[in-house]
C-alpha cells in the first residue's frame, strides 16, 4: 500500500479544519437534547456536559405515560402518525392525478393550474395560516384532525404537482401513443404505464408530504387543541406552560419524536435526494 503523499495529508488537514466545526455545529443541539433526555431531574439543570447519573428512566416515564402532561403520549403519537400518513396518501392521490392530467392528458387550462400551484408553493405557509385558521372555523372543521390533514395536503400538493409534472414530462410520449394504439383508456394508461414508471418520484413525494405533516408545528397548534386529538409537537409546546417545566421529559419525548423522520430519511435518502433536489423543497 502506498503511503499518502504530503500534499494529500495537507489537504486532509485543511478539510478537517472545516469538518470539525461543521460537525460540532450540526450535532450540538441534538446532543444537548439527548443529554437532557438521559439526565435525572435533579441534574438536568446543572449545565454539565455529561450527566452525573445517566438514566433511561425518562424514556420509561414517557412510554408508561407517567406524567400529567404525558397522559396521552401514545394516542398523540398515533395522531401524528395518522395525520402524516393521511397527508402523504391524499397528497399523492391529488398531485399524481393533477400531474397526469396536465402532463399526459394535456387538459385544457393545465398551464393555468400549474401557475396556481406554483404561486401557492411560493407563498410562505406561515402567512396562509392566519386566514386558513379562520376559514377552518367557518367550515366547522376546527378541532377535527381533518382540518390539519387538509391544510397539510394544501401545502404539500403544489410542490408535489410541480415535481411530478417535471418527472412526468420526461417520460417518452411514444409510450402513450403505443398504449392509445392498443386501445387503452386513460385509466389504463394511468395505471399500467404511468404509475409504474413514476414510482421513484411517487415515493419521494409521498415521504416529503409525510415528513412535512409529521414535523408541522404552527398549523397543528392552531388547528387542533383537545388533548386527545393533538399531535406530539403540540403536546411538546404545551409542556412549556407547565408549572414545573419538566424539561428532561420534554427532551426525552422530543428525542423519540425525532427518531422516525430521521430513520425514514436515511432509509429513503436515495429517492429523496434524486426526487426532490430536482426542484426545491420547503425547508
Amino acid at each position, binding site marked *: 500500500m502506498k503511503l499518502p503523499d504530503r500534499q494529500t495529508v495537507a489537504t*486532509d488537514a485543511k*478539510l478537517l479544519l472545516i*469538518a470539525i466545526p*461543521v*460537525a460540532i455545529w*450540526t*450535532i*450540538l*443541539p441534538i446532543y*444537548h*437534547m439527548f443529554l437532557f433526555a438521559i439526565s435525572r431531574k435533579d441534574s438536568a439543570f*446543572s*449545565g454539565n456536559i455529561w450527566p452525573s447519573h445517566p438514566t433511561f428512566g425518562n424514556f420509561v416515564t414517557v412510554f408508561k405515560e407517567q406524567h400529567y402532561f404525558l397522559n396521552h403520549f401514545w394516542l398523540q403519537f398515533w395522531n401524528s402518525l395518522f395525520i402524516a400518513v393521511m397527508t402523504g396518501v391524499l397528497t399523492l392521490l*391529488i398531485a399524481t*392525478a*393533477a400531474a397526469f*392530467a396536465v402532463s399526459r*392528458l*394535456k*387538459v385544457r387550462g*393545465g398551464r393555468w*393550474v400549474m*401557475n*396556481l*400551484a406554483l404561486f401557492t408553493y*411560493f407563498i*410562505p*405557509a*406561515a*402567512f*396562509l*395560516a*392566519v*386566514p386558513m385558521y379562520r376559514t377552518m372555523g367557518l367550515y366547522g372543521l376546527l378541532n377535527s384532525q381533518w382540518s390539519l390533514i*387538509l*391544510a397539510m395536503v394544501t401545502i404539500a*400538493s403544489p410542490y408535489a*404537482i*410541480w415535481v411530478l409534472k417535471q418527472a412526468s414530462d420526461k417520460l417518452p410520449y411514444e409510450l402513450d*401513443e403505443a398504449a*392509445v394504439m392498443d386501445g387503452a383508456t*386513460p385509466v389504463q394508461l394511468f395505471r399500467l404505464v404511468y404509475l409504474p414508471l413514476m414510482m421513484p418520484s411517487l415515493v419521494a413525494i409521498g415521504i416529503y408530504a409525510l*415528513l412535512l405533516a409529521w*414535523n408541522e*408545528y*404552527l398549523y397543528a397548534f*392552531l388547528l387542533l387543541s383537545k388533548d386527545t386529538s393533538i399531535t406530539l409537537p403540540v403536546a*411538546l*409546546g404545551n409542556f412549556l406552560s407547565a408549572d414545573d417545566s419538566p424539561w428532561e421529559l*420534554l427532551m426525552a419525548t*422530543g428525542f423519540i*419524536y*425525532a427518531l422516525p*423522520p*430521521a430513520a425514514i*430519511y*436515511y432509509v429513503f435518502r436515495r429517492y429523496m*435526494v434524486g426526487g426532490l433536489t430536482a426542484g*426545491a423543497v420547503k*425547508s
Partner: protein
Amino acid sequence: MATSNAPSAAVLLEAPAEKRRLTTWEFWGLMLIVPYVALFVLFVLYPVIYGFWLARHPHSYIDLIDDPIFFRTVINTLIFVVVGVLIKMALALGLSGFFMQTRPWIRWLSVLFILPWAVPSIPTILSVRFMLNPEWGMINTQIFRLTGEDGPNWLNDPTLALALAMAMHIWKSLPFWTLILLAGRLSIAGDLYEAASMDGATRWQKFLHVTWPSMQALFLTCTFLSMIWTIGDFNSVYLLTGGGPADLTHVLATLGIRYLRLDRVDMAMATIIFAMPLILPLVYIMMKRFSK
C-alpha cells in the same frame, strides 16, 4: 415546462374520426384535475379572499402602525431576510464545495450534516433555547466554570437574540440548500475543470471561471426562494425567543400569529398584507424562473 418535442397523446387523438373518444380523454383530464382545483379554491383562494375582507378597515392598519413594536418588527424581518439568507447561501455555496471532496469520512459527515433538516424543529429549537439559558444552560455554566465570569445574557439581549434566531434558522435550513447547490456542482461537466487545470488555473480561478458561471442562475434562484420562505419562518423566532425580550425580536410571521392570539385577526391580516410588498416581487421573479 411543456417543451417536449414529442407529439402529445392529446394532439395525436385530435384525428376527426376519434371525436367521441376525445371527449373521454377530456373528461378524464378534468376529473383528475378537479380535486386539486377544489383544494385550491377551498383552502387557498377562499381563505385569502376572506382574509382580505377581514382586514378591510383602515383602522386595522392604523392600529398596526401605532403599535410600538411594529416598526422594529419590519426592521428585524429585513435584517433576518437579507443578512440571514446571504450568510446562509454563502455558507451553503462554500460547503457544497467541501462536500464535493471524495473521501469516505466526508461522505459520513454529509450523512450527519443532513440531520437538522430531517428532524422536527420543535425539540431541537427548544433544546437550543435551554442550552442558552443564562443561569442553567450548558453554555453559560461552562463559561462560568472556565473563566469564573458570567456568560452573555444570550436570549435576553435583543441584538444577540435576533442573531441567535438567525443562527437557528441557518442551522435548520443550511443542509437543504447545501444539498441543492451540491447537486448543481455535480452537474458541471468534469472536463471543464480538467481543461482549467491544464491551463494552470488556481482553485479560486477555477471557481470564478468554471463553477460560478454554471452555478450563478441556480444560486440566484435558491437565494430568492430562500428569501421568500425565510420571511415566513415562524419556528426559528417563535420557539427560540418567542419574540422577546420585550417583543423586540418579532418578525412579521410571528407578529401575525401574536395578533391572532390576542383576538385581533384583522391586525394579523394587516401584518400579512404589509409583508406582501416584500414577497410578491420575489414570487413574481420565481414564477418567471420556474415556468420557463
